Structures are given as structure tokens and as C-alpha cells.
């Protein structure tokens, strides 16, 4: 298809992710700094390389891994957002959570692509989340207990964190819904976009996977609980490269 010229890089993002993969996602978890510095960063995507606030924009003490892992979010913003999505979909006995699944990378990359209009809303919203935590729970969001983090997020979700001086633009609920929506996309969408690492989201749903053809027998097997899940990106089917 001639229209695809120039739209898809010669080296696909997926190929790069395959090497950076889960290690890149782990690099985004606060506390995983030591491990992450050993691995290939996940930034080499041709669309995003060389763009955005890299290096000098970041506070020196937290810069090392985040600077190479993220393009749009500062280290401080990434810490707050990490803590937030970790409460939205925690890692627990049900399996990996949003951070394990690369949701932070999904969001950061989306802010360079389809969701570039949302960058300001993230910047303002994450700062407001932190401000609200300090005002009402006595500390920055990332230092709160998980119980307090959840209670803050409930306030934010229902719009109760919208107060003078806090800084949520257009109400805290719209910020919450935006982050939740992108978190769900990163957790449950195609891994092509940097999230759903190791198909963690699809496993949680018992989604039987992307198939181009589903025969009547496949459907009957699904109904009998006997259809083996497929774990492939749509772009693993060669025709969409």
C-alpha cells in the first residue's frame, strides 16, 4: 500500500520493544533504579529519539534512568504518575499490574503521538495531585501509604479534589478519567504501543487473543473453555508491517 510509505518506520517500534521489552518497563518503577541501569533503554524508537525534555530538564538526583526511558514526562512527573497507576491496577496476587505492563511507557509515548494535546493536562494534573496530597494528607503523593493514596485518588475521581490553589484544570475528575483511560489502553491494548508487556492485560481478562480467522470449531472450543489463547500482537501477523 503506497499510503503506508513514510508512516511506518523501517525498523518497527515492535522490534525495538522486543529487545527493550519488560526490562524497559521495570526501569520505570521507582525503586528499580539499580536493576534498570544495567539494561537497554526503551527510547530508541525512531519517532521519539531526540525529542522532548531529556537530561537537562530533570532534577539531577533522579535523572539517570528516567531520562533515558521517558521522553515527555520529567522524572518527578514519572514518579507521581507511577505511584498513581500502581494504585489503579496494582501488582498483586491476581498478577502483574500497570507498571509491570509498561503503562508508563505507553502514556509517555502516547504524549508524543496521538495524545500530544494531553501533555499540559498531565503536567498540571500531576502537580495538582501532589499539591492536594500535601494539603490534605501532609505529604507528597508518592510518600503516602497506599491507603492514603487510594483515598486521595477517590477524592480526585469524584471531583472532590477541585479546590482553590490545588490546580486541577477543569476539575479533578476529568484528570482522573484521562489517566484511567490511558492506563486501560496501555494495560489492555496491543503491545505494539509499549504497554501490555508479556500480555499481562490480556491474561487478566482471559482474552483468547488476536486471530485473523475464527472457525466455527474455534468458537465452540471457546464456549467449551478449550480454546488455547493466542498471545501475539496484531503486528506479528506480517501483513500489517
Amino acid at each position, binding site marked *: 500500500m503506497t499510503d503506508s510509505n513514510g508512516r511506518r518506520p523501517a525498523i518497527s517500534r515492535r522490534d525495538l520493544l522486543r529487545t527493550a521489552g519488560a526490562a524497559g518497563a521495570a526501569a520505570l518503577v521507582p525503586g528499580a533504579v539499580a536493576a534498570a541501569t544495567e539494561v537497554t533503554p526503551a527510547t530508541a524508537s525512531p519517532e521519539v529519539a531526540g525529542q522532548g525534555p531529556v537530561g537537562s530538564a530533570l532534577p539531577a538526583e533522579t535523572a539517570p534512568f528516567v531520562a533515558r526511558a521517558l521522553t515527555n514526562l520529567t522524572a518527578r512527573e514519572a514518579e507521581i504518575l507511577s505511584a498513581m497507576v500502581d494504585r489503579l491496577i*496494582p501488582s498483586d496476587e491476581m498478577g502483574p499490574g500497570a507498571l509491570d505492563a509498561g503503562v508508563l511507557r505507553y502514556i509517555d509515548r502516547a504524549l508524543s503521538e*496521538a495524545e500530544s494535546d494531553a501533555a499540559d493536562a498531565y503536567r498540571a494534573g500531576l502537580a495538582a495531585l501532589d499539591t492536594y496530597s500535601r494539603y490534605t494528607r501532609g505529604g507528597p503523593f508518592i510518600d503516602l501509604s497506599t491507603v492514603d493514596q487510594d483515598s486521595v485518588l477517590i477524592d480526585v475521581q469524584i471531583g472532590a479534589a477541585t479546590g482553590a490553589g490545588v490546580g486541577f484544570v477543569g476539575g479533578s475528575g476529568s484528570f482522573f478519567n484521562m489517566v484511567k483511560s490511558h492506563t486501560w489502553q496501555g494495560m489492555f*491494548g496491543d503491545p505494539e504501543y509499549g504497554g501490555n508487556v508479556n500480555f499481562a492485560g490480556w491474561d487478566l481478562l482471559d482474552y483468547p487473543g*488476536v486471530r*485473523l480467522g475464527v472457525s466455527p470449531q474455534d468458537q465452540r472450543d471457546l*464456549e467449551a473453555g478449550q480454546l488455547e489463547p493466542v498471545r501475539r500482537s496484531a503486528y506479528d501477523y506480517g*501483513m500489517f508491517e
Partner: protein
Amino acid sequence: MTTQLRGTDVVIVGMGAAGGVAALPLAEAGLSVVGLEAGTWLDQRDFAPDEIRNNYRDWPMLVKKAEQERPTSRATSATRANQIGGHPMMNAVGGTTLHYWAQSWRLNPWDFQVVTETTARYGASRIPYGSTVEDWPFGYDELEPYYDRVEREVGISGQAGNVRGRINSRGNRFEGPRERDFPMPPLRWTAFHDRMAEAARSLGWSPFPGPAAINSEAYQNRPGCGYHGFCNKGGCPINAKNATHITTIPRAVDTGNLTVITRAHVTTLEVGSDGRVTGVNYVVGSNEYFQPAQVVLVASYTYENVRMLLLSKSRAYPDGLSNNHGQVGRHYFSHHQGAGVGAFFPYDLNSWYGLPAQGVAVDDWADDNFDHADLGFIGGGNLWIMSDRRPISAANMGTYGQSRNWGSAWKRFIHENSDRTHGSYIQKTTLPYEDNYLDLDPTVTDPLGLPVIRITGQFKDNERAIAGFMQDKMEDWYREAGAIEINRGGLGNTMGASTHAYGGTRMGDDPETNVVDRWGFSHEAPNLGVLGASVMGTSGARNPTLTSQALAWRTAAHLVESWRDIAE
């Protein structure tokens, strides 16, 4: 500097659902046709089964003309209109048929004669207050041969319920008589569809599989549906969805008589001193062209058809082309498709692999298929149960009060229940009203500086009454099939923009109340034709595309037969 192009017999503005169909009979008749399309060709390699791309981002559209011309919308003329968030349609050869649901219904005979039938059965006072509804200028029987033709040319699967008056209870016993069966059997059902059909029967209703422009088996050298689950706003990677870019348009190109110009953004139509249309102006990037033509058929979407006419002002038509009776933009309505009902089941539905056009329909409460004597409305709705589930949308399901919608408790909930909800689709009779209309927005413009369309529209008591009535029926159906929780949407207020947008260039015999005549040609500019749902005066309780396509074929066939009268 405008480049003057060589003249042609016919220009069609828009190579989508309607224009893409009309091109075929014209080209086959030997007329020279130029098809102007704002978008580009796309093909199956562009149609990855990718939920983020299809349902959350901008799909593979390379041209975003529609997106840059998003209408503004308001409920009434007393309120302020705001630009809508996204345009429901897309630009490409084939138009929105590339990613539509492909439900391909014929209207019910009642839809063509709402005034006459309602008056005869219940009295003239039952026509809702303020409605400008008229009978169509012809009945179902007149359109039947064109429905039949398009069902074969495009490729429609389904189960006939009435062949020449012979009722088949496996199909829709309420449908108008058809000349023959569908060219393909219906799409398959899953165990959940069987269960819902059984529940409908136990309520005394008549369930049947719906019609779809999707191959249920190999047809026209393309394969049957793969049921991959990404059909909702997704193109088909195996070409089993019969969009016009793989059906009628290539066959028209193959005659040697259709030239498709892509990235052609039409701005206005030109008119001569005699009031006849002389051609169209379009731009490709920063280049301007004038394409002269004997006949112009506008076949873009409802909003753009109306907009092009209103923007084409001339000495002969100072208020816009074909608008000397003030009817362009009137009798507009968005189909009432909201007021949905959701259900939560205690068992898995196994709906991951399906499509919106695969399902169970019930027409017992549609149109005038039931007695309205003691009801406060006319018309009704089509109940539709489909398979349509993808991972992100599944994870966004409502939790029916069983969990917060995030956190560890939610993870347990969604692991158990991701495949246990269902949302119904209920299309309802929607009527035109005096104070619902389209015009040009006084302030909002597109990047060329031209005003966008402003929608002023509100659902009225009749639509809202149908919506509540249908929600009751839908809840009964879900409960019968074992649903343990039900939720209902609001009954509807502001119409807003829609994928089912009707009127604005309504078809009828009376030039005082209609823009085009019974053949789809302007009452005022005789060599201007209009294609698409903008000519439809009633919606029925079902998707408009097949009716638009049958009307487009009929207008094109009439043009071929009456070429001298219309073109010369």
C-alpha cells in the same frame, strides 16, 4: 489560479456508500464519470486488528477533511452551539463503509407512508406535534427492485422473512415482500445468540438474524467473514466486509468510464445564468481546479451535502444552491440510537470473536408492527443483540455496584466478569420537526475559512416515549435470558452529530417542502442530483446505508434513462 479541467458527463462528489454505488450503473451505461474523493485509497494492509488504533485513535485516515469540518451542535435555537469533539465519518475511497458495522436493512413499508398509515389507523391527530413528516413520494414497492439489485452488487448476507408474500419464520416476518432470497445466508450465531433467540421466543417474539454487507461465505471472489472481533470501526483485513472500495467502485473503474480523483476537496458548485449547475470547484493541497460537468451528483455525507449547497451562492440562488424555497437544511434529524440498556450475566457470553452485524434482531416492537391505539407515540424500535467485545472496552465495563472501577478488588472483579456484560443496540423511529435543522455556523470555520454546519436538534416526546417503551422490552428480554443486573441510559435530549443523519435535502413531490424530486434531482437546478440519507424523510428503526445505496442506484438509473432531459 484555478486550473480549468476538461468537461465530463457526470461528476460525483464523494466516493463513499452512495456515490460509490451510483458510479457503477453510470459507468456501465457508458457515461464518463469523475469521482472526486477527499480521502485516499486504503486497503487490507491498513486494517490491523488493533483496538487502540481503531477505537481510541484516528484510524488509518490520511486525510481528515471531515475532522476539520466538525459541525457545531445545540439542542434549540435558544442555546449556544459548541463544536463536537470528533466527526463520526471518515474520508477515504469507500468512505465510512470501510469501517461501518455493515448492517444492511431495507426499510419497512410503513416507513414510506407514515402519515397515510397513521392517519388511517389512528387518526391524523396522532402525527406528533410540530413534526414535518410527509409520506415518501413512492412506496416500498417502488424501491424493492433497487434494494434487490444493490443486495447482489454489494453483497448482503441475511435470512429472508417474506419472499413474494410467503412468510418464513426464520427471517423477519414483518419485512416488506422481497423478490427473492438474499444472495448469501446470514452470519452465524454463537451459543449466546441461540440463548437470546430462545428467550425471545419464550416471550412470544420472533427473533431472526440481521442482514449485513459482510460475506457469510465466499462471494465475488472474496472470502467469508473471519469473525476476528475488530469489525466495529475497523476495516476488514481479509476483504469480507463489502465496502464500496472493493465492490462497486473497482467494477466501475474497470469499465474505463470512471476516474477517481483522490485528495480532491470540493468547496462549491458553480451555476450558470440559467440556473443550471456547470461544475464543481475543488482543491488538492494548494492547487485549485474547476471540473465542468453536464450533471453533478453530490454524495458526501449529510452534513457536507447541505453545507456545499449552502456555500454555493450565486445570482440564481442567493441563499445557496437549490435553496430558493428555503428548504436546504430543513427536516433534519439524527437517528435516535441512544437510551441503551446494559445487562450483567452470571455466565460467560463468549463474545470475543464476533461483530456488530452478527446477531439477533426482534422487530415485534418496530414501526407499526403492534397496536399503538393505547400508546402515546407512533413508530417503535428494532431490538438488536450482537457480539462485540474487545479487551479495552471489556475492561471498561461497568461494575454494577460490585466493585470500585480500579484497584485490586476491581482486578478480581474483571478477571471473573470481563465476558459477562452485554449492551443492546436499539434504533428507533425518529421524525423531522419544524425546529430541528441544519444551517451554517455564524462563527466557526474550517481551515479554508468556510463556515461549518450547525446542528440544531432535539429529540421530542415521540422519540423519548419510544425509547422508554423499548427499554422495558429490552429489559424483559435480558431477564428472560438470565441477566442478573440491568442498567439503562437516559432517554435522550440533544440530537448532536450522528452516523445516521437524515434530511436537509429531503426528497418529495412538493417543491415547497422538499429540495429534490422523487428521482433525487433538484426541484430548482435540474442537472443537480443528491445522493445519501440527506434525501430521506423518515429513518425507520434501522440503519440507513442500504436504503441510501438503493436510492443512489435508482437516481443513477433514472439519469441514464433520462440523460437528454436532465443533462442537455
